[in-house]
C-alpha cells in the first residue's frame, strides 16, 4: 500500500499550464478514454488519465516528479478521441514544458527562453561574447577576430578563427551540461521518491550501473522511434523527427572530427567536398532542413493541436541552423566572401543558442525523456 499523499493544490500552476497550451485540461471528467486510446501507455497506472486529474488539481510536485509525462510522444491520439475536448496531449506537453523550467537553473534564463520578447537579446548574447572575447584577445596580440577584407578569400575562418569559436563553444557546452547535470540530479531523485511513495518500485536506491544498463536497453527504441511509430494520429511526424535527430547526430560526429583535425592534427580547412566527413556534414544539414520544414508544415496543418512559442522556437532554431550552415558553405564555394561571413556569423549565433539554451528549451526533452524512459526501464515499469 502506498503512503498517504498530501494534497496541496497550486492554483498558479494550473494557470501556468493554461498559458502553455493546457487551457482545456480542466474539462477532463476522468473517463480514461485517453489512457485507452494511447498506443504507448503502460498497462498498469496508465497515463494520461492520472496526469489529467493531477493537473486539474494543481498537484505540481506530483506531476514534475512523474516520469510518465515523458513517456508521452505527443502523438495526439488521446486529444482526438477525448469526448470532452480536454486535449490531454496538449496538457502533457504543457506539463513537460513547466517541468523543463522547474529543473533548469538559473530560473531567469529559463523564463527568458519562453518569452518571445527576449529573443533578440538572447541572440545578441553570442554576438557580444564573440566580439568581446575577440577584442580582448587582440589586446594580447592574438588575432582570432579579423575585420579587414582578406585579399584571397578561402573561407570564413580567416575572419573568425576556429580557435576563437572553439574556446567559446566549449565552455558554453560545458555550461549546458552542468545545468543538465544539476537538473537531472533533482529530476532523478524526485521521480525515484515519487515512485517509492506510489509503490511503483521497491528499489531503495538507484543503482548507477543498473540504470546505465537500462539506458543501453532503451537506446535502440529511441533511435528507431519505435514509440513514435505506434501513434496513429500523428504518425508522419515520426519521419521528420527522425530526420532532425539523425541530422543532429551526424553533425555532432562531424563537429568532433573537425575538432580533432584542428586541435590534434592541425589540419586546416576548408575540407574537400570528396572528404567522407564532408558528405556526412552536408547530409546532416539537408536532413535538418527537410526535417524541420516537415515539422513546421505538420504543426501548421494540425489546427486542433496547440503550438506555441515554446514549440516554434525550437523548430525555428533547427531550421535556422541548417539553413545558415548550408548557405555559409554555398556562398563560400560561390566566392561571395562578405555574404558567406555574414551568414556564418548568424550560424555561429544559432549554434551558441542551441548549446546554451537547450536545458531551458523544448530540446531538453532529449535528456529528460531519455532519462525517464531509462528510469522506467530500470524499475521495470509495466
Amino acid at each position, binding site marked *: *500500500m*502506498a503512503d498517504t*499523499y498530501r494534497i*496541496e493544490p497550486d*492554483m498558479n500552476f494550473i*494557470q501556468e499550464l493554461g498559458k502553455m497550451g493546457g487551457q482545456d485540461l*480542466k474539462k477532463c471528467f*476522468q473517463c480514461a478514454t485517453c489512457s485507452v486510446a494511447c498506443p504507448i501507455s503502460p498497462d498498469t497506472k496508465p497515463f494520461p488519465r492520472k496526469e489529467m*486529474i493531477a493537473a*486539474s488539481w494543481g498537484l505540481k510536485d506530483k506531476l514534475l516528479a512523474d516520469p510518465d509525462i515523458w513517456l508521452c510522444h505527443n502523438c495526439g491520439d488521446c486529444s482526438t478521441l477525448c469526448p470532452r475536448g480536454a486535449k490531454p496531449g496538449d496538457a502533457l506537453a504543457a506539463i513537460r514544458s513547466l517541468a523543463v523550467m522547474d529543473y533548469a537553473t538559473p530560473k531567469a534564463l529559463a523564463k527568458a527562453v519562453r518569452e518571445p520578447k527576449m529573443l533578440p537579446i538572447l541572440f545578441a548574447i553570442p554576438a557580444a561574447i564573440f566580439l568581446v572575447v575577440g577584442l580582448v584577445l587582440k589586446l594580447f596580440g592574438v588575432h582570432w577576430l579579423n575585420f579587414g577584407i582578406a585579399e584571397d578569400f578561402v573561407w570564413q575562418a580567416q575572419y573568425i578563427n576556429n580557435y576563437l569559436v572553439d574556446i567559446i563553444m566549449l565552455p558554453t557546452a560545458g555550461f549546458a551540461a552542468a545545468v543538465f547535470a544539476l537538473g537531472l540530479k533533482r529530476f532523478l531523485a524526485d521521480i525515484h521518491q515519487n515512485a517509492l511513495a506510489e509503490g511503483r518500485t521497491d528499489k531503495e536506491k538507484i543503482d548507477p550501473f543498473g540504470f546505465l544498463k537500462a539506458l543501453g536497453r532503451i537506446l535502440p527504441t529511441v533511435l528507431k522511434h519505435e514509440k513514435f511509430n505506434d501513434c496513429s494520429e500523428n504518425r508522419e511526424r515520426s519521419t521528420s523527427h527522425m530526420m532532425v535527430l539523425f541530422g543532429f547526430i551526424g553533425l555532432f560526429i562531424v563537429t568532433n572530427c573537425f575538432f580533432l583535425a584542428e586541435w590534434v592534427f592541425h589540419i586546416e580547412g576548408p575540407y574537400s567536398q570528396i572528404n567522407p566527413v564532408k558528405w556526412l556534414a552536408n547530409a546532416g544539414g539537408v536532413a535538418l532542413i527537410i526535417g524541420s520544414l516537415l515539422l513546421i508544415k505538420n504543426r501548421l496543418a494540425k489546427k486542433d493541436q496547440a503550438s506555441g512559442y515554446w514549440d516554434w522556437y525550437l523548430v525555428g532554431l533547427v531550421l535556422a541552423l541548417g539553413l545558415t550552415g548550408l548557405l555559409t558553405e554555398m556562398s563560400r564555394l560561390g566566392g561571395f566572401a562578405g555574404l558567406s561571413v555574414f551568414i556564418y556569423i548568424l550560424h555561429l549565433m544559432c549554434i551558441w543558442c542551441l548549446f546554451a539554451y537547450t536545458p531551458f528549451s523544448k530540446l531538453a526533452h532529449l535528456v529528460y525523456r531519455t532519462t525517464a524512459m531509462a528510469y522506467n526501464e530500470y524499475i521495470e515499469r509495466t
Partner: protein
Amino acid sequence: MDKKYGVYICTGCGIGESLEIEALSQAAQEEGFPVKTHPFLCGSDGVALLKGEIDSGINTLVIAACSRRVNFDTFRFPGCIVDRVNLREGVVWSHPRSAFPALTEEEKADPEKFDRVQMMAEDYLKMGMARVKKVTLPEPYKLDNFTRKILVIGGGITGMSAALDAAAAGYQVTIVEKEPQLGGHANDWRKQLPLKYPYETLIPPIVEQKIAAVTDHPLITVRTETVVARIAGEPGNFIVTFKKPGEKIEFDVPFPLPDEMKVDEKGKELDAEQLHAKFLEYNQGKQDILTLDPNGEPFGAVILAAGWRPDEPDKEALSHLGYGEIPDVITNAQFEQIAKRGQIVRPSDGKSAKSVVFIQSPGKGKDADFDYAGAVTSLVALKQAKYVREDYPQDGKAFVFYQHMRTPGLSEGFYKSIQQDPGIFLTKGEVVQVSKNGQGLTVTAENTLLGEKVTLSADMVVLAAGMVPATKDDPVVNLAYRQGPGFRDNAIFNEYADSNYICFPYETQRTGIYAAGAIRRALTVEESMEDAAGAALKAIQCLESVNRGVSVHPRSGDMTFPDFFFQRCTQCKRCTEECPFGALDDDAKGTPKPNPARCRRCGTCMGACPERIIGFADYNIDSIGSMVKAIGVPSEDDYSEPPLRILGLVCENDAYPALDMAGINGLSYSADVRIIPVRCLGSVNVIWIKDALSQGMDGVFLLGCRYGDDYQCHFIKGSELADIRMKKIGDALASLALENERVAQFEVAIDDYDKLPKIINEFVESIEAMGPNPFKGF
C-alpha cells in the same frame, strides 16, 4: 338493454389460413349467435359491414380478430357491447402451423386426433360469447356536487408554479402555506442554479418573481399561516377544513386505531361496533371521518407541494466525518445559511473558510449517497463550491469528494463551467475520516481518482445531506379516509409521496391528489417547476374525468365503477382495508361506503370480497366465471389421451401486452392454455380458480407485475395481494385433494415477452408431470 348478438370473424392476417373458419362459425352458431366472416374486418369495408349490422339492430358484438390492444378505435361502437376475441396474436401468430400442424384429411377421420390450435380458437370464441351475455353497458357515476377549484398545499417554488400553471389553464386555485409568507426554502438561498441555456452561471433566486406573479393573479387565492385540518369526500367534491398551524379543532382528522388496540385483553379481535366505539374514544374531540364539516370549503383536486426539510444526518453513524463533534463539519443546508448571511466563515470562530471540502457520500465502504439525496445534492455542492470561489477569488479552494456526480440533462453545462474554475477540485472517492488539526481540519479519503489514499487540510467540511419529504413527518394531506390520513404505502417509496416511480409521475396513492416537487423526490428548482406543471395537468385531467364519471389513469376513460350488493355484505372490511387507494370508508357497522370518484377501477375489492358481492358492469365475478366455464375441458370420455387445460389469469397492464408481443414476434407457447385478461391480479377472486379446478382444468397460473422493492404493479399492491391470496388457497386445494403446485403466480415486466413462452411451458410441463386433474369429466 335487450341484447342482440352478432359474431364477426376476421379471416385476414393469417387467421383464415390457419384456422378452419367453417368449424369456428359453427361453434358460434351452436350457441345461437349469428356469424359473419370478413377477410379484412378493420378495413373500411369491414367496418361498414359492422356499422350496417349495428344499424340493423345488433348491439352486442363479438369480434373475433386481433388483440383488443390494437384497432381499439376502429372497433369502438358507442352504445354497443363489444368483445374482442384475440385470434390473431393469441392464437394463430403465437401458434403457427409450422409448430402446431393442422390435421390431415386422414387424421380428421380419426376420432382420437384433435387440432389443439383450432380447439383454442373455438374456446376463445365461446369465452367471448359467454362474457357478453354477462356484462352490461356501464353508466357513469356523476357527483351531485362538483367543483373545479384546485387546492395547492405548500407555497414554495413548486406550489406557486403549480398554482400559476393551473390558473393559466383557467382554473381557480387556492394555495395554503403554513408559514407567514410564501416562498418556502427558496427564501433562504444566496443564489440558485441556472434555469436557462447555457446553464453556466448561478442566478439570483427567482422566488420573488414567483411570489409577485402569484399575488397578482386574479384566479389565485393565497392563505398563509394555514394548514389542512382534513380533506373529506372525493375528487370533484373534496370538503376541506383549514386551520392555523398548531390549533386543535373538532375537524382535525381522526387517526385509525393502531393494530394493538384492535383486540381485547385476551387478544381476540373486536367486532365492528366495539372497534368503532374504541375508535371514537381514541379520537376524542374529533369528528368521525363520515361527518362532513358544514363550513368546509369544496375543492375538486389537490396538488401536494408540501416540500421538504433539510435532513439532519445521524451523528453517531457519521462520527468518522466528525459530524456532531467538530463544529466546522456542517450540512449543506447550514452552509447555505452561512452563505446567505454573508462571507463564508467558520461556525467555530467566525474566521474565513477558504478551503472547504464537500462530501457527497457517507462512505463506510458503501457508495450510497446520504439519505434523501439525489442529483440536486450534487448540483448544490457545485453551487456552494462556487460560493467559496466568489468570496475568495484569489485563494479560495473548494474540494468535492463524490461517489456519484449527478448533473442530469442540460445541468451538465453547469458542471462543465464549475470544472473550469481553477479553485474547484472534483474527484470520486470515499472520505474515510475528518479530524481536527489545530485550528483546521484534516480530511482523509481513499480510492480517489488521484490515487489510493489522500489527505488535505480544510477550514470547513460540508456534508451533502438530503431533502426529507414533509410526508415523512406528517400526513400533511390529513385525509378523512378510513385507511388513515396519509398515504399508506409510502414506505415502498422511501417515504416520498409517490405511487409508481417508473410510470406514473405525480400520482399518489390517493386519487385526486397529485404530488409535485421535493415531496416526490429530491429535486432542483427547475425540476420542481417541471413537476409542478405535470401535477397541475394531472389535477386538471382528474377534474375533467370525474365530471364525466370516468376513471383517471391508468384506466383513463373507464366508465365502470364497483357496484356492491349490500344485502349480502358481512362487514368483513376486507375491501375497505385492501383497496390500494382508500376509496372505501366503512361506517360504524363496518359496511363499506364507496366513493367512486376516489376509485381507480382496479377491482382489488372484487378480488378481496369473500361474498363476491362486488362487481363492475363489464367485469365481474360472473362474467369471468362464465368465461372459465366456457372453456372446453376434454376428458378420457372424449379422447384416450385428452389434452391438458390450463387457465392463465393475466394482468392486462403489462403481462397481457407482453403475451401479445410474444405472438407478434412469433414466439409460441403451449396451445393447452387459455388466457383471460384481468384488470389487475388484485382483482382475481379465488372463486375463479376453484371453478376452474373443480371443472377439471389441470392448473391455473397468474401472470402479473413485479412487486416488492422494484415493484411495477399499476395499482400498488395488486400482485402482492394476489400472491398472499394464492398462498392461502392451499387449504381449499387440499380439501379438493389437489396439489398446491397446480396454482402458481409469475411476475413479469412488459419487456419480458421473450421469457413468457418458457415460463408458461415450464408450468405446463410441471402440470403434465403431476398428471391430469382427477375431477376431469365429472
